């Protein structure tokens, strides 16, 4: 007769294996995986935030009306009439921003612990897809309130989708072949953001993207089990801790902490709602949501290079990492030890210096188009502050490859450079760009209009 008393080995394993929901866990985990410094609970927090978004989103759907004429007033009703509506909306908004931030942090964590190694390639790629879906989900939600902020952010965003036009324009073929315009039409269903765009974004936001994310999440969690738990160094011990209840206590703690932070944020800060969208009067400056402002800064140099070439290169780099880097011994070790730490820190300083340097030149002295009147547009697409930065990062990464003789460390160098660049550009886009996309140190220096 097996021992089935509470607390026995067997009952603990059955707790997990007999429950549909708990079954996404393996019955046992490694002690290392539960340490805070291994994961910082980021992935688990992402899952919880998604859950909260579904719950609050369903509540918002009861009152929200996706029509050009009523969307704005329905959000206003949610804010000022519906009991608790403002709090629910705040939770939804801050959880959405939280997901974007945590998704980036989770990416950073998995990268620097080499968690894409040892057969975890597929899960890394799924993760990249989930990051993109999260960004799209947030972006599609951004339009729904139909205020000035939403309207112009999405106008800018949808024209970023059309930025292939810069190339076809430069080649003089947009009239006959216009892939950029086609993508834009698919996205917003019209030439300008209007009812069609709202209908499409609403569909994407409440069905297509959440469902996609849910399915990807299912595969993501299933892969973690299949891959034998989290990545860990070869010399670590076997799975030695029961999931029930130890790992679940950890997860509960993450839930409590994220909930506490979220609830406090929703209590103290209201989600913005500006005046009703006015298609004739652009916001000045018109800014897309903050997580696209790094890209928007790049786009202010060249739409095609900044909106398409560089983002595509970045995603291609992320996806290619586990195919190029096969140095399995680095799995599960933060920064892969002392050499990796040095490479990362050096790359951090290198990238910060180069990025700030190029920005300084661009802000103070302009660029090719300002120096030589009549510079052909194709040249600006190829040589602009964005592409120069990307090239500098690539050269640095090749240099690290030569120096360390390791693909792993050169990937670390490139990843660090790209990330630091993205952070700096985003910072500039969010805080240092004012009306007419001019550079201002302080918001109080903006000209009064």
């Amino acid at each position, binding site marked *: 007769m097996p021992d089935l008393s509470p607390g026995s080995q067997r009952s603990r394993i059955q707790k997990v294996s007999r429950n549909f929901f708990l079954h996404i866990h393996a019955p046992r985990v490694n002690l290392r995986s539960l340490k805070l410094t291994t994961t910082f609970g980021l992935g688990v927090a992402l899952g919880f935030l998604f859950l909260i978004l579904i719950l609050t989103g369903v509540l918002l759907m009861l009152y929200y009306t996706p029509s050009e004429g009523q969307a704005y007033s329905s959000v206003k009703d949610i804010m000022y009439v519906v009991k608790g509506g403002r709090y629910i909306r705040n939770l939804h908004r801050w959880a959405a921003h939280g997901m974007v931030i945590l998704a980036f942090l989770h990416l950073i964590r998995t990268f620097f612990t080499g968690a894409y190694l040892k057969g975890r390639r597929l899960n890394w790629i799924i993760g990249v897809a989930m990051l993109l879906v999260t960004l799209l989900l947030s972006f599609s939600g951004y339009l729904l309130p139909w205020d000035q902020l939403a309207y112009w952010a999405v*106008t800018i965003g949808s024209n*970023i989708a059309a930025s292939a036009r810069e190339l076809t324009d430069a080649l003089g073929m947009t009239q006959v072949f216009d892939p950029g315009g086609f993508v834009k*039409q698919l996205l917003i269903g019209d030439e300008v953001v209007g009812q069609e765009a709202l209908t499409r974004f609403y569909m994407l936001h409440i069905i297509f993207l959440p469902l996609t994310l849910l399915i990807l999440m299912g595969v993501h969690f299933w892969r973690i089990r299949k891959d034998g738990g989290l990545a860990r160094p070869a010399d670590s011990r076997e799975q030695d801790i029961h999931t029930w209840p130890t790992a679940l206590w950890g997860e509960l703690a993450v839930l409590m902490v994220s909930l506490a932070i979220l609830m406090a944020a929703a209590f103290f800060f209201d989600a913005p709602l500006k005046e009703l969208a006015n298609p*004739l009067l652009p916001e000045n400056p018109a800014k897309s949501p903050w997580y696209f402002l790094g890209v928007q800064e790049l786009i202010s140099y060249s*739409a095609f290079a900044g909106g398409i070439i560089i983002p595509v290169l970045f995603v291609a780099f992320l996806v290619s990492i586990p195919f190029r880097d096969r140095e399995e011994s680095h799995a599960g070790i933060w920064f892969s030890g002392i050499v990796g730490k040095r490479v990362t820190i050096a790359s951090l300083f290198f990238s910060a210096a180069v990025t700030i340097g190029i920005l300084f030149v661009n802000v103070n002295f302009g660029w090719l*188009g300002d120096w030589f009147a009549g510079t052909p547009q194709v040249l600006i697409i190829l040589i602009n502050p964005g592409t120069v930065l990307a090239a500098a990062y690539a050269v640095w990464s090749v240099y690290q490859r030569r120096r360390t003789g390791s693909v792993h460390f050169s990937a670390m160098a490139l990843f660090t450079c790209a990330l630091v660049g993205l952070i700096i550009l985003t910072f500039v886009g969010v805080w240092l760009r004012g009306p007419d996309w001019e550079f201002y140190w302080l918001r109080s220096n903006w000209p009064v209009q």
Partner: protein
Amino acid sequence: MIPETLMEKPKGGLTRRRFLGKAALGCAAGAGGLAGIAALRSIAPALTRTKKVFSVGRLHDFPVNTFTLLPKHKVFILRDHEGVRAVSAICTHLGCVLKRVEDEFRCPCHGSRFDDSGQVISGPAPSALPWFKVDLAPDGRIRVHTNQRTTSQDKLRLF
């Protein structure tokens, strides 16, 4: 009972069973593909709300030597002593609506500036503003065709 001879697999060759299996798969993939293409085509809008040809008013609505912004259609109508022209009011960078400031068109979003003929003076805008064909509708009103480009010199001459 299936006769023995049908179940035998000739070495390396295609049995009837395998052939039918492959053919069925091929048909399913083909049908799925075609259905997919049809579904995708439905996503691209066949009609949009944005009008490409529209009347903007009569000659006396536009004083001589002015640029008039028509917000609904996002074009500027330029009237001078010879005739009428129309130029796009949509910034070629990322689509904000331009303003007429002093002698130029300015974009409030990322600061592109265009001169009177629509050429870029400065800023991130990659190309000049397009000029549109203007003619008279049968009812005598001025009509703009945003699907037909012309040059900045080409006017509807009225005198």
